[in-house]
């Protein structure tokens, strides 16, 4: 992809881009926090306990970690999430995976599904032409943030209170 200079963010970086640029920069520079929050532990248990029959945790190029995939008429990639709180972020993450399959792995068609096992619901994610254009733009923006020499100044937003970087940003 000449569009993106070969730089490709990880799935986590896509999520952090959509949540908070400070977190994105710190994470990309390996300033990482040990998260002992109950939410993270519950999240991990949900991952381990749900969809036990599926082949889980498929990691591609060290960039994207798929929770599980299903092969039918088309390939379906599944993402498991705990809460509805950041639906837009979850959707963007999966859109990036679909784009990655299409343009990097050259596998198409692929569908995406976000699973909320605690709510027993699913959400289908599609990639339309507009989204196809959006993803490379986001990749460029992420690359710009990650490569800037200084940390983006933290801004207080709703997710702060549950973020592993809370103490870091506000001490």
């Amino acid at each position, binding site marked *: 992809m000449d569009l993106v200079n070969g730089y490709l963010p990880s799935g986590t970086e896509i999520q952090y881009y959509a949540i908070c640029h400070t977190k994105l920069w710190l994470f990309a520079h*390996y*300033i990482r926090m040990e998260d002992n929050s109950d939410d993270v532990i519950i999240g991990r248990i949900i991952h381990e306990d749900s969809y036990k029959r599926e082949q889980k945790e498929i990691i591609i190029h060290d960039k994207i970690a798929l929770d599980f995939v299903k092969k039918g008429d088309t390939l379906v990639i599944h993402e498991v999430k705990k809460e509805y709180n950041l639906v837009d972020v979850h959707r963007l993450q999966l859109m990036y995976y679909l784009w990655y399959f299409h343009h990097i792995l050259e596998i198409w068609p692929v569908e995406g599904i976000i699973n909320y096992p605690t709510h027993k619901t699913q959400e289908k994610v599609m990639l339309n032409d507009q989204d196809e254009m959006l993803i490379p733009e986001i990749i460029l923006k992420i690359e710009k943030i990650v490569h800037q020499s*200084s940390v983006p100044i933290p801004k207080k937003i709703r997710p702060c209170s549950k973020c592993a970087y809370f*103490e870091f940003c*506000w001490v």
Partner: protein
Amino acid sequence: MRNFYLIKNGELIRKHDTLYFIAKKEPANSNEDFILEDDTIESFCELDDESTKPEYEKKALPIEQIDAIFLYGRISLTSGAIGLLAKKQIPTHIFSYYGQYLSTIYPKETLLSGDLHVKQALHYANSNERLYLAKLFVKGSAANILTNIRYYERQGREISPILSSIKERIDEIEHMSSINELMALEGNIRLLYYSTFDAIMPSEFSFKERTRRPPQNPMNAMISFGNSLVYGEIITALYHTQLDPTISFLHEPSERRFSLALDIAEIFKPLIVDRSIFKLVNKKMISADDFNQNIGSCLLNENGRRLFLEEYESRLQTTIKHRSLHRKVSYKRLMYLECIKIVKHLLGLKKYEPFEIWW
């Protein structure tokens, strides 16, 4: 999360994902949290076969709740136990019979940032940047010293002249142009501070002067014991950050292995160690019987260590409302937050301001 202090001889072993401490059984009515030292055996402990005997007991340690382990007794560790401690990221600090810090079994580093490491080294190598941080460590330490003795001045102890001398010295910090000058000034402030102790403490705990290796009297014994605990505590805090504990600013990096821990410990000694001592002594919780006095040395004995560690640990767990986080934070957590503030300084995100007691 809390620390575990093992002050009895024994053995740490692993069975599956549980850590067990095997030691001789305690007499009835002993304190559950602190295991008393039995100091009659000089050889290393090999209790595996004996652990089934009735005079030994095996205790499971709540590994998910342990932040760090402090070893005071002679304790054998199996490779399995060390592996489990590494997996759970629990540093284990080892102290000599005299209570001096010896070493840490440091779990494999999982938090590494090459970027921050370079920035930390550059701050050390640039003499202005280094002096800037070093001054702040001295300022923070001095401010907390001042808070401690102001309290006793308000109680009517006659220490006003020393208090004003300390204030004058604090004003000089800003004008120091080298690390050596700054270190000398810091030593000076601490001497002035210690010279108030005899006015603060009852006469049976007369302090006279600071003596180390070995300490000469009970006050010195408690200061040495407490200071090594805080040193271990900051090493634990540093382990949970990307900071390199060997690159320091006030102390020379060559001085001791984890010299950054020495820098940060200065700030917390007045709050954690000195206040523990004042309380133990002034409330008559500790007495001369809790020390082993020999010619040329004085050390806390079994009971003294237990009393000190109880007071120390409860102080670490004390919480206050943090002024910028608006959350309850323990004194222990304050030490970790101090490390985080240094990370932010090194990254250029926020100028470091040392912790000063604000309550």
